[in-house]
């Protein structure tokens, strides 16, 4: 079955990069992968989101009506997409930003990680998305924790940004720990 993920947050929080990291990981396992960004005027106003699908089979629509995983980096992303999450699905929440007293659907698993703070502690403020990817790997069966890390490393190497990998994997590992 296809795994469907929606990544959403403010522009600059790395949600599109997170999506790209996920499909790159899928592609390197020879799976079918698809990434669908919001584009055009939808991009204006500072919010960004993308849909990611990873499957052994052919992928149909680029749109996800009921994602298995919702990867959010801010409150508006939860407001917009929480109701779509598949019952039993996973919601990843950035507790550095989202109020602690917010309530969530009871039929989904909610994992709260202070990803913005962790990334700042690691002196890698742009690595908040990688912290969240660590949390994703630790709380889902999409990819093993080790494989996801190696796919992140190879993604940045392909982009000629391998020199940041030490800092990046530090963020990722904090996300796996969840704190």
């Amino acid at each position, binding site marked *: 079955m296809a795994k469907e993920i929606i990544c959403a947050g403010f522009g600059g929080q790395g949600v599109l990069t997170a999506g*790209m990291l996920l*499909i*790159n990981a899928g*592609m390197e396992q020879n799976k*079918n*992968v*698809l*990434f*669908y*960004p919001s*584009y*055009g*005027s939808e991009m204006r106003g500072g919010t960004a989101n993308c849909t990611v699908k990873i499957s052994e089979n*052919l*992928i*149909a*629509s*680029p*749109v996800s*009506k009921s994602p298995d995983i919702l990867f959010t980096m801010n409150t508006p992303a939860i407001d917009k997409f929480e109701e779509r999450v598949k019952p039993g699905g996973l919601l990843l929440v950035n507790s550095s930003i989202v109020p602690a007293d917010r309530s969530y659907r009871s039929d989904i698993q909610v994992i709260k990680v202070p990803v913005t703070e962790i990334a700042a502690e690691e002196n890698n403020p742009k690595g908040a998305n990688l912290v969240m990817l660590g949390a994703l790997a630790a709380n889902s069966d999409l990819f093993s924790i080790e494989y996801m890390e190696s796919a992140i490393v190879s993604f940045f190497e392909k982009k000629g940004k391998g020199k940041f990998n030490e800092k990046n994997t530090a963020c990722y590992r904090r996300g796996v720990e969840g704190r």
Partner: protein
Amino acid sequence: MAKVLLKGNEALAEAALAAGCRFYSGYPITPQTEILEYLSWRMEEVGGEFIQAESELAGINMVLGAAAAGARALTTSSGPGFSLKQEGISYLVASDLPAVIVDVMRIGTGLGDIAQGQGDYWQLTRGGGHGDYHTLVLAPASVQENADMMAEAFDLAEKYRHPVLIASDAAIGQMIEAVEIPEFREHDINKYEWTIKGCKKGCEQRKIQNVYYTNPNYETYLKEKYDEMEREEQRYENVCVEDAEVVLVAYGISSRVCREAVETARAEGFKLGMIRPITLWPFPVKAFSEAKEAKAFLTVEMNILGQMMDDVKLATNANYAVDHYGSIFEIPEADGIIAKAKDMWKKGEI
């Protein structure tokens, strides 16, 4: 070559270069702009010419000049911009010139909107510009096909000395998938005698103009050209059509959802099938002979009027119920398609 992650628009642009395209002129319009942006830097790397034209009109007419001079020439647009290209497409046809024109479809009439759509079917398959013509139209359904169809489009354009259109859409253009770019091929601008290159003393002058002027048998020539295209170039993919009781007909992004609908319906015991036209013109009439058990045909298109229904009725001699499952702004969903197909099937039983 290893697979890479590319946006549909970028894969199409890179594949055009791989197919030997060395001339591009276009104008920005969402959702095809990435093609122009990509070629703005990449064309130079392969030694080709890129021009951001002042308008779609200028862009297509630059392509006409480049094609007459022997280059594999490309222009791309969407919706309103594609309408402006029609003048040049009509002239390309009239002048027997090969070129590839991509329409990354968006929804709507007039300005419409930038969301994915499939509302240009009539314009793509019925000529689109003034006069009496068709163009070959290829409809990719994935990023890989966006890449694979470029070389095929240029080859067909040269085979028939005729423009070839690619009917992509915003979803395929904007999505990223893993893709293998075909190997690079060289194209020789002197490959064909008819391309303008300078008239040597005592040689026959080359004239690129309406074939009405240059070919006294133009009526037969044109009729035979279109007949041959209809005979030789129908391309399609049939999915579970032979025993299907209701057959979906869909191309491009909609066909992907229909494939899912067929699988889901069959798992429930409902014999659904799909004909996927890969050439929109010539319409793949041949595909329909396989539908021996069909009671009804349902087109699935991202438009309001069900533009492809006419072609389905013609392909089935108007002997079957034909209906349309339409969606605008949103990509159609399998559940809705199956429900409508079942509804048609029930009516067919009565």
